[in-house]
């Protein structure tokens, strides 16, 4: 079964969020999402300085099978995209919650009404989707 760390928050579209000690936010895709996509072969991350609104498509993850957009669950300014993914997209498969992070941002407080789930609620969401 897929891993769902208890200290992160999640979206129904399978992104995860981690709040870092300095108040910035790290975003990636869940273990369930990487398993469903299969081997990732190409990742496009946003550039630092880009301003995102909640719900904006902020990255593209492509596997052998399909291309998917990654949506920013909150609004803010991009501090960094994970440049390592340009040459090692498989980091997302191997370590989706660690080295496979996709972007870091400074949130502006724009939640866009999107619902953030805790690990228990996300696990229920994944189970319901089969």
């Amino acid at each position, binding site marked *: 079964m897929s891993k769902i760390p208890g200290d992160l928050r999640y979206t129904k579209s399978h992104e995860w969020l981690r709040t870092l000690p300095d108040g910035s936010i790290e975003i990636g895709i869940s273990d369930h999402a990487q398993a469903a996509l*299969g*081997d990732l*072969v*190409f990742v*496009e991350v946003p550039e630092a300085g880009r301003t995102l609104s909640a719900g904006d498509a902020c990255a*593209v993850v*492509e596997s*052998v*099978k399909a*291309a998917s957009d990654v949506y920013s669950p909150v609004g803010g300014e991009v501090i960094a995209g994970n440049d390592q993914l*340009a040459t090692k997209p498989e980091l997302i*498969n191997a370590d989706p919650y660690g080295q496979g992070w996709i972007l870091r941002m400074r949130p502006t407080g724009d939640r866009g009404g999107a619902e953030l789930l805790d690990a228990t609620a996300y696990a229920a969401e994944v189970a319901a989707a089969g």
Partner: protein
Amino acid sequence: MKRTPLYDQHVAAGARIVDFGGWDMPVAYGSQIEEHHAVRRDAGMFDVSHMCTVDLRGAGARALLMRLLANDVGRLTAPGKALYSCMLRPDGGVIDDLIVYFLDERWFRLVVNAGTADKDLAWIRERAKEIGVAVVPRRDLAMIAVQGPNARMKTAALLPEACRAQAAALGIFSATPCDEWFVARTGYTGEDGYEIVLPAEEAPALWQSLQAAGVAPCGLGARDTLRLEAGMNLYGSDMDESVSPLESGLAWTVVLEGTRDFIGKEALEAQRAAGLARKLVGLLLQERGVLRAHQRVVVEGGGQGEVTSGTFSPTLERSIALARVPAATATSVSVDIRGRLLPARVVKPPFARNGKIMIEL
């Protein structure tokens, strides 16, 4: 949903199962890319029991196939030889592509696609009854493809005693029946290997012994990237009833010369005389990204085309595709990938075969 005799093996191995034309089939057991490399570098196996083996029995079998197939079955003179061909509608559209094995003058064996098997059988039977040939689909049989540079070596000792010597002596694109088994040196990956047809109830034991011999189970995902690298068409994607083999990169499988009259010949001759409007080519993406089926191909000053199959090539570590484009298309095109036009080079497939990259990167 239909299941092959190996379904339980796939589930036990943790395969991700998908609906493939009404069949529950494994798309990958773990990493699809590792499965792909196993076949290019060592040995992998595929459950292809969803494909339909069809026996044609009777003295008129050869005459029937001479009429039904665009390739010339008259070329099959030595028992065991195989031939790849399209089966056409009168207007030249492709009903299916298949492999035909000549076993003796009263027995030819076809292997047809899973998704087209029912319509193929109806089409073949309609013409067989005039000639008095029996058309026998063999749903009692399973099929395992073992492919890769070490495939034959790893398989050799696992074949029944009766098959071993004949299988070891097989030339490329040849087959041998041995008791209830049938071993062919054919495949859909661009690597050496066998396709083994055997009684359904014996398939799980062979699958397990192959796995114990170090042959990696591979799913339909790796099968697709391997065949695309090898420049082999997929029916339903690269060609179907709306296009002819001449517009599908398959002119090499069509024999128009001579007096043999096959279904679709007249239409192909007319198409050739009028000049072909489109052709199927290989594409190599020049930037990062992944080519995928149905993306729009833009030819500078020369119209548009469409990607028919596209993927990330694990061997080339670049994206490759087959695309149907205007006949005048030269050496470079652009492809609309998610709203951006990216440059791609037109190349002649295969992209990779026998473990080697076959085009200039």
